[in-house]
């Protein structure tokens, strides 16, 4: 695997009129491998959404650089190529749907890229099938549930055939069922099509499904590793204002009591398995 998105010593601050710019990221470096599924976890205001916007040149670093597939986001001539490679899905599904019919909305992206009509037709159908929304292709987006709208937004991105999708809290406004559907869709895109995924969330159960979890706090990386290792750091996570997996938390309490529970427990299922052996 090679690096697809590379943050090199990025510093970034939002400019507000008449005020000192607040630094959001300071000397931030991160490398995302091609085909990887990386979750970024952090509380509101930790800088994770800024990372998303830096990924396809919506924001440009004040110092350092962001490289996408070898292209520097600072170079304006690179932007079209970068945005073909990296698509972003935002939190609020209502803010990113532009058309009055589902399939028109999905066609919006490839149309703007100048794709042939025949090819657009094929891509729209494929994309809608991929996210499980093909049966709703003639529906009016405002009549869909939040989770369905979010899957339409994802279809709009994959119709542009990007190598990488960045999702900025795509499930924050959804109900439990909608959250599961979106999560499954994203996992499938990563597994079946090898699309690189950068998944920003504050739900630890979603981050646990990634290959790699990065925990951010105050604009820098606090923890970085496979979910099983990262989520053992209960105290650090709590200090960063995040939830910890309750199974891990209970397992650690029981271990302190002297109960033998070998290994790093992450899920409720794993804990049930081990506890059953102890309790029988």
């Amino acid at each position, binding site marked *: 695997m090679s690096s697809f998105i590379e943050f090199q010593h990025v510093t970034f601050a939002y400019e507000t009129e008449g005020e000192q710019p607040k630094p959001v990221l300071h000397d931030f470096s991160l490398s995302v491998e091609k085909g990887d599924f990386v979750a970024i976890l952090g509380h*509101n205001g930790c800088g994770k959404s800024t990372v998303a916007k830096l990924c396809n040149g919506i924001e440009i670093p004040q110092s350092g650089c962001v490289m996408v597939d070898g292209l520097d986001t600072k170079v304006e001539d690179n932007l079209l190529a970068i945005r073909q490679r990296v698509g972003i899905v935002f939190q609020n599904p209502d803010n990113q749907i532009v058309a009055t019919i589902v399939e028109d909305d999905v066609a919006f992206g490839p149309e703007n890229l100048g794709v042939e009509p025949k090819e657009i037709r094929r891509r729209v159908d494929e994309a809608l099938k991929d996210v499980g929304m093909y049966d709703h292709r003639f529906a009016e987006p405002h009549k869909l549930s939040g989770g369905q709208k979010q899957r339409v937004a994802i279809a709009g991105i994959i119709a542009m055939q990007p190598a990488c999708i960045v999702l900025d809290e795509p499930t924050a*406004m959804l109900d*439990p069922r909608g959250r599961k559907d979106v999560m499954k869709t994203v996992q499938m895109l990563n597994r079946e099509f090898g699309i690189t995924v950068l998944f920003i969330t504050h739900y630890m159960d979603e981050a646990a499904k990634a290959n790699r979890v990065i925990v951010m706090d105050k604009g820098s990386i606090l923890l970085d590793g496979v979910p099983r290792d990262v989520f053992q750091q209960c105290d650090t996570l709590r200090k960063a204002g995040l939830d910890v997996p309750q199974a891990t938390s*209970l397992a650690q309490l029981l271990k302190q009591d002297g109960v033998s529970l070998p290994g790093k427990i992450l899920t409720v299922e794993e804990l049930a398995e081990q506890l059953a052996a*102890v*309790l*029988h």
Partner: protein
Amino acid sequence: MTNHPILTTEDLTYIYQKGSKNEVPAIQDVSIDIMQGELVGIIGHTGSGKSTLIEHFNALKKGTSGRVLLDGADIWADRSKIRSVRFHVGVCFQYPEYQLFEETVAKDIAFGPKNMGLQQDEIDRRVSDALSFVGLSDAYKEKSPFDLSGGEKRRVAIAGIMAMEPQVLVLDEPCAGLDPRGRETVLRMIADYRAKTGCTVLLVSHSMEDVAAIADRILVMNQSRVAFFDTVERVFSHAEELQNMGLDIPQMTHLLLLLREKGIDVPVNLYTVSQVHAMLQSRLKGGNVNAE
């Protein structure tokens, strides 16, 4: 909490597109008593009827059949008094921060009380009280609501409803979209408000864990009907049925269900890490431990 019902529904039914071929029942035969001073969690997945139900509580919808009683009186008995029903039952909808519109936080919070025709000094008192209920200092009064963080905006919007000092405060998903810290702040704020004012609070949520943390009773809606309306513990003793309704049960309750499946006799009405930890500790001390 008292034994005096503040809000009652009697066989309340609401059917969308009544009389057409496409009749859709949103709520059916809902009969519940909500007691004065109680904090009730309302749970159900999208489409279960919970939003339609709360729209009946302040007369935004009128049941196709059945009645809604506020403090014993039918809210639709005198149509000219409907406006006052809306002052007594304050509903804070999802993402209320999108409804902020005034130049300053104080003016925005004062909007409701002003419409009630209150005196200026009474309005000022209510604005200050409401701000303190949501944990914001008086320094926020003159700020523009649009300069606040998402979580602060949410709290200002909730304060706007609290300032009307309704007998019943209804909050639809007040924690939606907030991070864990923001969620905790808002939940604590709601529990404090209830404790200080003795007001009745209805909290609509997708999250069983959030509701379990602060509610006295839980109303579970499923397919437009009341599935359960009971104390938190008794509702969670039906964990399996809740799961079958497609609801997310608390992680700890899920753990206990899995242990039961493996033939271990544990109660399933516990839902926090500390409850389950205490239960397991006493069991393990009781000599049930597999000697190692």
